[in-house]
């Protein structure tokens, strides 16, 4: 089975966000594999162990993303590919990234492509579905269970808390939701092995794309932090008094009840 994972390198969820002149300050920040993409990598490894084949993890970014690709290899992926866009001067958006990925996949044979349902940094959730459309294949998003038998696929997906049971077939793109699995930590032997696994770097040229082919369709004109919250009011007294006061405040001051 040819299994691919679309991965994104993101800020660690522990990080506080600092913005200078509308730009996120990345100085000293820790980066991780987008947590939803970890579910995708884990599921890909499980699929390979069950059905054979290999797992290739693909990202669009710059050479800093090699660290996260190596982590994916250490988890158990077989190959990694970095589509390096560092030399592109203009800011890229989801259209651009998916254009590059679609060009990459259109030259490959794939049975299933997995991704996270959203990246925890920009939270857009666009790239995977755009790639599925670009490739003309079916998609099932926010999956929490996946079973493949031949080309038949049974899926459970999270739909705002409810569970939808879906029957479909390969080739397919899925995006992974929490609850799908418990991603493994890279083992020490895994980390050693990962150093020798192939990590290829390609650029837009290799994909027969010009810079204007990936020109962004949207533009970010500002970034800012939400207004600082005023310190709240701690209610004093016995429980009965606290509860009375809270109900009064919610009704008369906050007016939300």
């Amino acid at each position, binding site marked *: 089975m040819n299994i691919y994972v679309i991965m994104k390198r993101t800020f660690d969820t522990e990080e506080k966000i600092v913005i200078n002149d509308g730009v996120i300050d990345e100085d000293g920040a820790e980066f991780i594999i987008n947590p939803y993409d970890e579910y995708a990598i884990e599921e890909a490894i499980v699929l390979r162990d069950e059905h054979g084949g290999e797992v290739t993890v693909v990202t669009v970014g710059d050479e800093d993303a090699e660290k996260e690709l190596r982590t994916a290899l250490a988890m158990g992926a077989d190959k990694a590919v970095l589509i390096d866009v560092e030399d592109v001067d203009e800011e890229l958006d989801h259209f651009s990234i998916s254009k590059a990925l679609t060009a990459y996949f259109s030259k490959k044979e794939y049975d299933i492509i997995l991704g996270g349902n959203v990246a925890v940094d920009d*939270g857009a959730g666009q790239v995977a579905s755009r790639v599925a459309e670009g490739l003309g294949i079916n998609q099932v*998003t926010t999956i929490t269970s996946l079973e493949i038998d031949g080309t038949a696929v049974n899926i459970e997906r999270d739909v705002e808390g409810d569970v939808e049971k*879906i029957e479909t077939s390969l080739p397919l793109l899925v995006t992974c939701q929490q609850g799908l699995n418990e991603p493994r930590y890279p083992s020490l032997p895994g980390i050693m092995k990962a150093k020798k696994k192939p990590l290829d770097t390609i650029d837009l040229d290799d994909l027969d794309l010009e810079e204007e082919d990936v020109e962004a369709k949207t533009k970010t004109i500002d970034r*800012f932090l939400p207004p600082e919250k005023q310190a*709240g009011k701690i209610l004093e007294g016995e429980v009965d008094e606290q509860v009375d006061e809270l109900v009064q405040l919610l009704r008369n001051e906050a007016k*939300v009840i």
Partner: protein
Amino acid sequence: MAMKMLVLGEVKDNELRNVTFEAIAAAKTVADGGEVVGVLFGENLQQHAEKMVHYGADRVITAEKEELSQYTTDAYQQALLQVCDVENPEGIIMGHTSSGKDLAPRIAAKLDCGLVTDAVTVEIEDGQSVFTRPIYSGKAFEKKVMENGRIFATVRPNNIAPLEEDTSKTGDISSMNVDIKDLRSIVKDVVKKSSGGVDLSEAKIIVAGGRGVKSAEGFQPLEELAEVLGAAVGASRGACDAEYCDYALQIGQTGKVVTPDLYIAAGISGAIQHLAGMSNSKVIVAINKDPEAPIFEVADYGIVGDLFDVIPKLTEEFKKVTS
């Protein structure tokens, strides 16, 4: 510049979802004096179409078909693209809901246009539509514009104020015959799990529990409070990891990002990832034994105490005042 905008409405459990009215309001702003055309897929859509008109749509196109009664990517994509072919809109707005999230990027890819997802406000600045959206799960925000071509956005439920309902307003409601074929996904079953039918992303009030709830049974008092308030029940990652509840309830940077009018956090310490998912709620109440818990830093009202003492009393009080 006056523009023609499409708004895809959404029907759930035979009710038009509120986010539909919010999407209409957003489309009105973007249309800037142009036309807002509602679109509805499913069955028995007449009354919902009228309601879209009452909330500001100039006219509505409906496509009634059995294949559209349940959302699937293929069926909705085929239907919406056929409507786009006929109407050739300059922009599209839909809710940032489960189906909107699934559908919008595919449509954008097909139409070769940009897309701004999860917008919380839209304004016209210098003749341009500017969308504000949260990034880093609400730790920060960004403003986005379309470089050229179609305007396309999904709007987060509960953020854009709908227009006042005007039941005297009339508009053309026309049905369109769409062709649906070769569906690649079949929905075999939908298992309802969401608590009390109140959806977290659209809930006006959320009662959420953390590790302090101590067990699955510990959620009982929270559920009772939620029932009195017509609220949805949520949880922190800690509570989900400890298997007190289902991951579907998780609020935070992984999990759902919510912005209700009132968020009651019980036994939640307030890890930065959880705060990212709820700190933009309008009013936050924190109940926690630990006065140093970070949740108090974002709370408007705090009670230092045991949730098992406080929550049942709160339920009793609210019963009195809401009855």
